[in-house]
Structures are given as structure tokens and as C-alpha cells.
């Protein structure tokens, strides 16, 4: 049997993530300090873990409804209303997914027909383009610029829209740049999108982590709610990456189609994770726990520190305003992103992720995550400074 000939063209067309090679390299090295990790360094707060244990003790080990427990959907609806003034019906306009990742895949699958174009800001998180490709479409990358704080510009969006455009992915606060979209910037995009038939897949997973005022959701812009598929989750705000839990809030016509696919391929998200997530949101809404704010404050302090150090060693960088990444420009070293990341790893045992892993516009940058202890960030910056000084 020739297995290679069995693999679909669609699967073969997907490139393996460049981060994978880097992971193998970094993993093999002792004493590495990693600023290459895309998840919180905090452990899920105890009261949330405790809720999961209580759920297990109570014997809640069966499937939940496909859309998730009504208790959790209600908590999500309450949260979206309290936080953004957005009203969604928990019975028909909200459902629970296996991470925001599943939600993104579902959105692309129910929207994209063969040949359709999906607009994706560049640089961005690595999953959107493969997702569009797997759904039979193709990705069209929209350049973003450090001088705009890596926000997506209205004129760039307008120029990219064609009759084949099926969706815009809007991932802000942004991984890997730390860029956000302010309300005026969102209004600029809304002005372009209104009157088009282009829905927006708004990946707002980092929405709780902003450092210059509250996160603005595209769905809050008047007239945009119907056009927005709002995706978020628990991984980043509550340090719950391993629980694999996200959610979708959108018009019921989107939700019913996405839920249909979800029913067939997933059934439902993990039951104990849902119990934990309900506790996470309800604890936040009751004002009983401030772990989200505490973690946000810790990231904010590290953000200031790492920005100060990178600038101090002569690497230009945009001061990040969301998520937990900083994206310094490393062109002054004369190295490409991959050369920089690989040499830094080999010579100084510091792992960062080459910017080109997130799209061609990421070339000339590296992504440093400050979801690491201040002590480790300090040590990593000392090593990186030594590395950069030798090359300027």
C-alpha cells in the first residue's frame, strides 16, 4: 500500500508549522530560558480547579448538551453583557467549543466555499491560513505595520475586498505583535465593511489582556453585531489553556450552522472543563475573585520591564498594548528572524519565536512572550543583550 498517494491534496497543501522545528531544537537544549511560550505561566486559580473537582466528585462525567451546559452559556451571556454591553440569547446565539481554535475552524468551514478568499492580517496567529485552506478556500494576507501599532488599516482592507471575499479574520489583541484595535480603528473598519457581505471572524481570545484601556469588540460598533462571529475563550484570561474551552457568540443563523458541524465532529466540550469555566465567569461577575485582574497586572509590569530592556539594548519595538507578546525589530543585527532565533538559542540558550512563522510581514522581527516569571525575563534579557551587543 502506498500511503503517500492516499493523503488528500488538501492535507498535503498545508505546510507544517515553522514553530515545530524550533520546538524540537529548543527542547533538546539544557538550561534554556523560554520566551517562546504562547500560554500563561500562571496555573489556573484554585477556586476554578476546585469547581472541576467538585463536578467530578458529584459524578458529572456524562456528555453535556451539544451547545454546552445552559449554566455556562448563561454565564457567558451575562459576561458579554456586563463587560461589553452585548446581548446574546444563551439558548440560540451562544455555544461552547473545544477552545477558540475549534470555533475558528467551524466558522471557516461553514462560510468558505472552494475558491473563496479569507482575509487575514499579517502577521497573525498561525492557524487561520491553514484553516481557510482546509475549508477549500484561500487566504489573502493583509499587511499590518509597526508604525500603525500593527492595527489593520481601513484602506488596506478596502483594497483587498473582491467579489470572492468570504470572511475577514480579525484577531485582536494580536498574537504575535501585541497590537490592539481601538474603538476608532474598529469604526474605520466598520465603515468599510458595512454594506458589504463580508462577515468577520473576531478572535478576541486575548480580550481580557489589554494595557491601555478596555478591549473594544467589533460587535460593539453600531450595526456590526450581526456581521460579527465573536470568538473567545478561557485559556488566556483565566490561565486555562489545558482545559480546552472556548465559545462562540453570533447571530443564530451562523450559530445553528456551526453547531451542526460541532454536533457531528465533537459532540460537546469536556464536562468538567465546563463546570470550571462557569465558576471562572461567575466568580468574576460576582466580584468575588480578582485573579484575572491580578494576572493582567503582573503581565503589565513585565510588559513595561521587557519593553524597557529591549529598547535599552537597541532593538526598536512597538510598545505592545494587549496579549502577552512583544515583537522587537531585529534587522539592526543583520540577521533574518530565523537566524536570530536560532543563534540566540544556540549561543545564549534563550528561546524566542522567529517572526516569519506568523506571516511574511513578520520577517525582521521575533516574538518574545512575557508570560514568564520576572526573574526569567530578567535573565533572558541579560543574555539577549549580550547577544545583540556582539552584533551591532
Amino acid at each position, binding site marked *: 500500500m502506498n500511503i503517500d498517494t492516499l493523503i488528500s491534496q488538501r492535507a498535503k497543501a498545508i505546510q507544517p508549522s515553522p514553530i515545530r522545528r524550533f*520546538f524540537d531544537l529548543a527542547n533538546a537544549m539544557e538550561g534554556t530560558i523560554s520566551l*517562546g511560550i504562547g500560554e500563561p505561566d500562571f496555573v489556573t486559580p484554585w477556586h476554578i480547579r476546585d469547581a472541576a473537582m467538585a463536578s467530578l466528585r458529584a459524578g458529572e462525567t456524562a456528555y453535556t448538551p451539544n451547545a454546552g451546559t445552559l449554566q455556562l452559556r448563561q454565564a457567558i451571556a451575562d459576561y458579554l453583557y456586563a463587560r461589553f454591553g452585548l446581548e446574546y440569547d444563551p439558548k440560540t446565539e451562544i455555544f461552547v467549543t473545544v477552545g477558540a481554535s475549534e470555533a475558528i475552524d467551524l466558522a471557516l468551514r461553514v462560510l468558505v466555499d472552494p475558491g473563496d478568499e479569507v482575509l487575514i492580517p499579517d502577521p497573525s496567529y498561525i492557524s487561520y491560513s491553514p484553516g481557510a485552506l482546509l475549508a477549500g478556500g484561500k487566504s489573502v494576507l493583509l499587511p499590518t505595520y509597526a508604525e500603525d501599532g500593527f492595527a489593520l488599516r481601513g484602506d488596506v482592507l478596502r483594497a483587498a475586498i473582491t467579489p470572492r471575499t468570504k470572511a475577514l479574520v480579525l484577531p485582536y489583541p494580536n498574537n504575535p505583535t501585541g497590537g490592539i484595535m481601538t474603538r476608532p480603528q474598529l469604526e474605520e473598519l466598520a465603515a468599510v465593511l458595512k454594506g458589504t457581505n463580508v462577515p468577520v471572524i473576531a478572535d478576541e481570545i486575548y480580550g481580557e489582556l489589554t494595557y491601555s484601556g478596555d478591549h473594544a469588540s467589533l460587535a460593539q460598533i453600531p450595526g456590526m453585531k450581526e456581521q460579527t462571529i465573536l470568538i473567545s475563550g478561557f485559556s488566556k484570561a483565566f490561565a486555562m489553556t489545558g482545559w480546552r474551552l472556548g465559545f462562540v457568540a453570533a447571530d443564530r443563523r451562523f450559530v445553528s450552522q456551526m453547531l451542526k458541524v460541532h454536533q457531528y465532529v465533537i459532540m460537546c466540550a469536556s464536562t468538567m472543563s465546563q463546570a470550571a469555566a462557569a465558576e471562572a465567569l461567575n466568580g468574576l461577575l460576582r466580584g468575588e475573585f480578582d485573579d484575572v485582574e491580578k494576572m493582567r497586572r503582573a503581565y503589565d509590569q*513585565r510588559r513595561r520591564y521587557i519593553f524597557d530592556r529591549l529598547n535599552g539594548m537597541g532593538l526598536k519595538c512597538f510598545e505592545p498594548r494587549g496579549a502577552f507578546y512583544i515583537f522587537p525589530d531585529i534587522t539592526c543585527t543583520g540577521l533574518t528572524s530565523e537566524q536570530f532565533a536560532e543563534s540566540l538559542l544556540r549561543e545564549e540558550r534563550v528561546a524566542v519565536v522567529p517572526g516569519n512563522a506568523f506571516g511574511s510581514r513578520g520577517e525582521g522581527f521575533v516574538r518574545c512572550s512575557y508570560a514568564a516569571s520576572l526573574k526569567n525575563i530578567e535573565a533572558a534579557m541579560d543574555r539577549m543583550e549580550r547577544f545583540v551587543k556582539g552584533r551591532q
Partner: protein
Amino acid sequence: MDKIDAALLELLEEDARRTPKQVGVLLGLSEAEAKARIEGLEATGIIRGYTTLVDREQMDEETISALIEVKVQPERNRGFDAIAEQLYRFDEVKDCYLMSGAYDLMLIVEGKNIRSVSRFVSERLSILDNVQSCATHFILKRYKTDGVIFEKQPEDRRMVVSP
């Protein structure tokens, strides 16, 4: 007391050796501003001092601590304050609180060994006129003090690189 002072105190409670410059960078203040704020907090007495948190169990010379519940007769005019002072002036007394409930004062007393703590109880504490009774509980193991967990915490379990 504003939000910045609160954040500043949190940083110093976590690590009192942080310099004004370091604190300033973390909070978005200049070094001079951070220094002025710290001095202000010291002057008003909100910052009472800087100490070192020691895990005595790891030392060769072990010490022993006891939590002592004390029932006392309050004094006319001065209430519990006079008897409390008489107790907290002893160097052995590390903490002293006035409590609601079944007893009045709670002391945490530290000594070289069980005998020295017993001696404190029998020779210094019980003989005081105002002390009606006391119950001594020796501390067997310290899990968490002032928000610091003493058990070794697990290492970072995350993958080295992830998207």
C-alpha cells in the same frame, strides 16, 4: 492611598529588595517618583519595615513555635491594651492579636525548644494577675506564611515553545 501605591506595596511585599528604579520600570514611574512614593509610605508608617522570610526547618538549629490562646481580665480604662502590651513586649512573642470569640489574645511565641516555650508559659504568662487561662498549641509544620507557600513549588510544566 491610590492604586499605584497599592501596586507598589504589593511588589515590595513580594520582594522588599527591589530598588526604586526596578519598581519604577514595572509601574511606569520614573526612578525619582518611585523613590518619593516609597519614602512617603515609610514616613506615614504604612511601610513598617523590611524583613527576611526564613524557613527555619531547613536550618540545623531548629526553633519551635506555638500558638497560645489567652483569656484575660481587661483593665478598667485601658481595656485589653495594657495586658496586651505586657505580653507583646516579650521578645519571644512574634505576633499578638486581640480576638473575638472564645478567648481574648492570640500569641505566636517562638523558642529554641519545647522547654523554652513551656518556661515562657509557666513562668512569664500564667503568673500574670490578669491572665485567667491559656491554651498552648505547638506548630508542627508550616505550610504557608504571609502568603508564601513553603512547600517546594512544581517547575514550569509548559512546552518550551508553542504558538
